[in-house]
Structures are given as structure tokens and as C-alpha cells.
């Protein structure tokens, strides 16, 4: 496009400002959605525009396929991303926290979306370095679409029904395309019950991400101890159990796999070794249990007891993402617990093919 063919900047600016003035924006400029553009989104799915895809009973609002399309268009998605948006939203609505009060929570949780299968390359997802972003359109705009749906279709807006105390970096911007090519383990979607080779989306809510930089040892167990230390910090414990996943960099994953660790072995190791002594928990005012909630109990009798905090493999989801250029992995702190399911991408309507966008694989 030559400069003389470029769109009218004043018209574009006016459209963006109009969207701000309506209160629709998450703070960044929106793409003004029009009927012809949204029609292209709707053409990528065989689901009816008025199908309700999510409901928040307590606020009396719901989201339809049509509203999801409008918000996805505004988020900057291309129409061909829309099946991924729908699958991500379906996956999120399987999370108890997302159906309940999660979007209103003082914790301000962020969705983490994980994409598997051929769709990663078909749509040009970033599958390697900088997995947590930014820089890549599908990875950036698909989670933003989810955020706009929560804001606009559900009406959960900051300072009103959304009560995040501090929120967290990365809210509405975490969409990992798993680095299946450099992962030694089966794709995450298989852990979510999907067959190999299928394009599928998994999602859960996070309270934060914390890096573990360990390029100092050839001993995989030392890497696991380093990760266990981060998982076991008392600041994140509020209930009896917790859930913490690991987004492994390829180097750590390959080191573990090379030493014979399958995913299940890593999960079992972390379940066994993550936790704190009663004394540690008491020092932080979190040793007592009332139901499942922790509180400060002056009782010292359990000081020497080691308390484990990860109750099942489902509470330790493992993903492989990022570049193979350094041994840096990420602990992802799950809000509530992952449903343990992945959502397959719906087939495109007849006579429509997912366009090859020709980005590097």
C-alpha cells in the first residue's frame, strides 16, 4: 500500500475515539467493528450468532457468538482467529472460577490460554521465544478478546464490578502456543483429553507468573528443587491446597526428559517436594485451617510437620513454551484449579479453508 492509498488517518482516529467515548476500551485503542467485518468472523463458525456461549448468573449478563465476534474484532483479531477465541472462551467457561466470581475478584486473575496443534502455524502464532509476549498478533489479540468480552458482554468493569486490588501483569495478554516441536513430551492438549494432532485450546486463570532462572546445573533434580522453592513460597498460599503449573523452557524440559522424567514423573516429584513445615507456615500466619481456609493459629504442635500443598497431577499442569536459548522456566500460579480439559477447535463451515498465512514455523 502506497502512502496515497493508505486509509484516512482522521477517520481512523475518530473511530478509535468513538470507541473510547462509549467506555468499551480496555485502555488501548480498539478496532471499530462494523457489520461487514463481524460477518467475516461469523462466517468462520457454524454456530448461530445468537447462541449463548457464557452466562454470569449473578450479574444477569451473557455472551453470544455475535457479541464474542464484535469484541474479537475490536480486540484486533483477524476473522480466522475467531474459532480459537470461541474455543478459548469455551475452555475458560469450564473453569469454576470463571463461571463464579473470578472476574470480580480482588485477585484480578488473568486467563492463560494454551494453543496446541496445526492451528498454531496455520494462523501464525508465536511458538518460540517470548512466549508470554508481546509481539505477535494472534497471541496478543486472542486473550485481549476474552478481556473485552468480560468487560463489555458481561459488564465486569474495573472499579465497579471488577474489584482487583492490584491486578497482575499480563492480564488479557497470555496466550501460549506450545512449542511442540522442541518439547520432549506429548502436547498439553493430550493432558486435556484430546487426541494427538488435533488443534485444541486449553485455558485456566492465573494469579501470577514467576520465573525460575536455573542455567547453573546439569542435574535435573537441582532444577526441580529450584522450581519447588518458588512453588512453595508462603505468600501464595491461602487455602489448604494450591495449584501451580510450570511452563518449561525447552532446555529444562529436555534435560528432565533426557534423565528419564515423563510429565507424570515431574508432577509426582513436585507433589512430593512442594510444601512447607508447620513452623514456616506459622511464622507467616498461615498454619491453621478452618475448613479449607488458612489462618494464624498460635498452636505450635505441628511445627515439625511438612505439609504438602499440591494434591493431584491436575494441580500441576505442565506446558513447554519459549525458545531453547536459555534455561528459564515459569511457575504459573493457578487461580482455583484447572478443569483438566482441552477444547478442540470446531471444524470450519463447509467451503471455507483456514488460510495459510505463511509465517515461519
Amino acid at each position, binding site marked *: 500500500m502506497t502512502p496515497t492509498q493508505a486509509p484516512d488517518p482522521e477517520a481512523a482516529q475518530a473511530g478509535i475515539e468513538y470507541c473510547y467515548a462509549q467506555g468499551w476500551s480496555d485502555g488501548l485503542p480498539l478496532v471499530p*467493528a462494523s457489520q*461487514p467485518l463481524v460477518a467475516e468472523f461469523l462466517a468462520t463458525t457454524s454456530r448461530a450468532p445468537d447462541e449463548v456461549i457464557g452466562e454470569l448468573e449473578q450479574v444477569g449478563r451473557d455472551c453470544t457468538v455475535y457479541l464474542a465476534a*464484535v469484541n474479537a474484532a475490536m480486540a484486533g483479531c483477524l476473522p480466522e482467529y475467531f474459532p480459537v477465541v470461541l474455543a478459548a472462551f469455551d475452555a475458560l467457561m469450564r473453569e469454576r472460577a470463571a463461571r463464579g*466470581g473470578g472476574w*470480580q*475478584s480482588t485477585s484480578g486473575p488473568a486467563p492463560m490460554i494454551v494453543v496446541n496443534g496445526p492451528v498454531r502455524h496455520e494462523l501464525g502464532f508465536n511458538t518460540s521465544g517470548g512466549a508470554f509476549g508481546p509481539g505477535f498478533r494472534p497471541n496478543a489479540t486472542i486473550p485481549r478478546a476474552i478481556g473485552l468480552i468480560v468487560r463489555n458482554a458481561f*459488564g465486569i468493569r474495573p472499579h465497579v*464490578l*471488577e474489584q482487583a486490588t492490584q491486578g497482575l501483569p499480563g492480564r488479557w495478554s497470555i496466550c501460549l502456543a506450545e512449542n511442540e516441536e522442541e518439547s520432549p513430551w506429548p502436547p498439553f492438549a493430550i493432558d486435556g483429553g484430546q487426541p494427538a494432532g488435533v488443534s485444541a485450546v486449553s485455558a485456566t486463570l492465573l494469579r501470577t507468573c514467576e520465573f525460575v532462572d536455573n542455567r547453573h546445573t546439569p542435574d535435573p533434580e537441582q532444577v526441580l528443587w529450584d522450581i519447588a522453592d518458588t512453588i512453595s513460597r508462603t505468600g501464595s498460599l491461602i487455602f489448604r491446597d494450591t495449584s501451580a503449573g510450570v511452563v518449561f523452557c525447552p532446555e529444562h524440559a529436555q534435560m528432565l526428559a533426557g534423565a528419564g522424567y515423563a510429565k507424570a514423573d515431574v508432577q509426582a516429584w513436585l507433589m512430593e517436594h512442594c510444601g512447607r513445615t508447620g513452623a514456616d507456615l506459622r511464622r507467616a500466619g498461615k498454619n491453621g485451617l478452618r475448613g479449607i481456609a488458612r489462618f494464624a493459629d498460635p498452636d505450635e504442635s505441628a511445627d515439625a510437620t511438612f505439609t504438602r500443598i499440591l494434591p493431584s497431577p491436575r494441580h500441576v499442569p505442565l506446558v513447554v513454551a519459549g525458545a531453547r536459548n536459555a534455561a528459564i522456566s515459569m511457575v504459573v500460579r493457578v487461580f482455583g484449579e484447572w478443569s483438566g480439559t482441552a477444547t478442540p477447535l470446531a471444524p470450519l463451515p463447509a467451503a471455507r479453508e483456514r*488460510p495459510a498465512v505463511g509465517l515461519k514455523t
Partner: protein
Amino acid sequence: MPALPSRGTTPGPPNLILDPTGTTTTTRTAKPRAPRARRPASLRGATVGLLVNTKQNAAPFLDELGRLLKERYGATGLVARTKVNFAQPAPDELIKEMAASCDVIVTGIGDCGSCSASAVADGIAFEASNLPAAAICSDAFGVTADAMAELHGAPGYRYATTPHPVAVLTPDQVRERAAQVLDDVVALLTA
């Protein structure tokens, strides 16, 4: 960079910027004004329902309020129930059961993003079952509680507030707070 798909190929209405909220479509209509229960003149002889939302200190707070309502205002019965999922509105069966067995109800403590809003939503639901209700929220959550009231057709719905935070209070401080909010609760429950 993939080529942008062609635009404007679909016939349709004038090319307006679309509303992503769904609130201007014809399928959504304004909620009717929520009903408010008739208030008794006093709590003498009344059975008071206490709906505890499981937030830290909610149970001792409401227990103390119940005790004071008996001691100082002549209430005679207490029915305490626990709402298992604090983030969501109380289930219909629980509302029906309490409406059948109680004369007035106190619910709380709303001291988180979702539970403040849902404490107010519960209060409004109890009113619809003709049960005068007093919801108690921490004063840090006024905006979200008010927004919920509006969503449930009760703009300006009145509830009692106690200063934030509640969860860290000692047992003595909880009793003190309950005593401080007592008159507001009685004013909300009586004519």
C-alpha cells in the same frame, strides 16, 4: 503479514460502529423495580436468620449481632445458615427455607469483589420473598455493592457497612464491630 480479508462484501445495514455490550439490543429490557419486604415495627419476638458467607470473621460477627439482637431488641429465635459459595448468590432453596422460618435476615460479610456484590444480591432476593434483610459489607466495596443493586433492579438499595478490613480483627474487635453496626442493622430491618 497476512493479507487483510476483503471488506464490505456482506450486504447489511448502514455501516455503523457496532456495540460490543449487547445492552442496546431488543432482547434485553430493563428489570422491573425489585420489591421491598414490609418491615415489622420492632424485632420483639422475631426469629432472626443469620446467613454466613464463610468469609473470615463473618461467623463470629453475625453470631454476636444475633446475640445483641436478642439481648437488646427482644428477638427470640436465631436461625444460622452458611452459604457455601460466597461468590455466588444464595441458592433459591436456601432463600425459600429461610423465608419460611425467619422474620428478618442478616447476611454478610461482604468483604471481597464477588461476595460484597452477592451479599447485596441476596438481600434483594430475600426482600422479594418478603423477608426484610440487612446485608453487611465492608466499606471498601461500596461501588461494587451499589452496582449489583442496580443490576438487580434495586438502585439505591441500602445495606450496612463496617470499616475495612474485617478478616484481620481479633475476637474482641469483631464483637466491637458488631456492636457498632447494630443500630444500622435494626434500622434496616424495622419500619
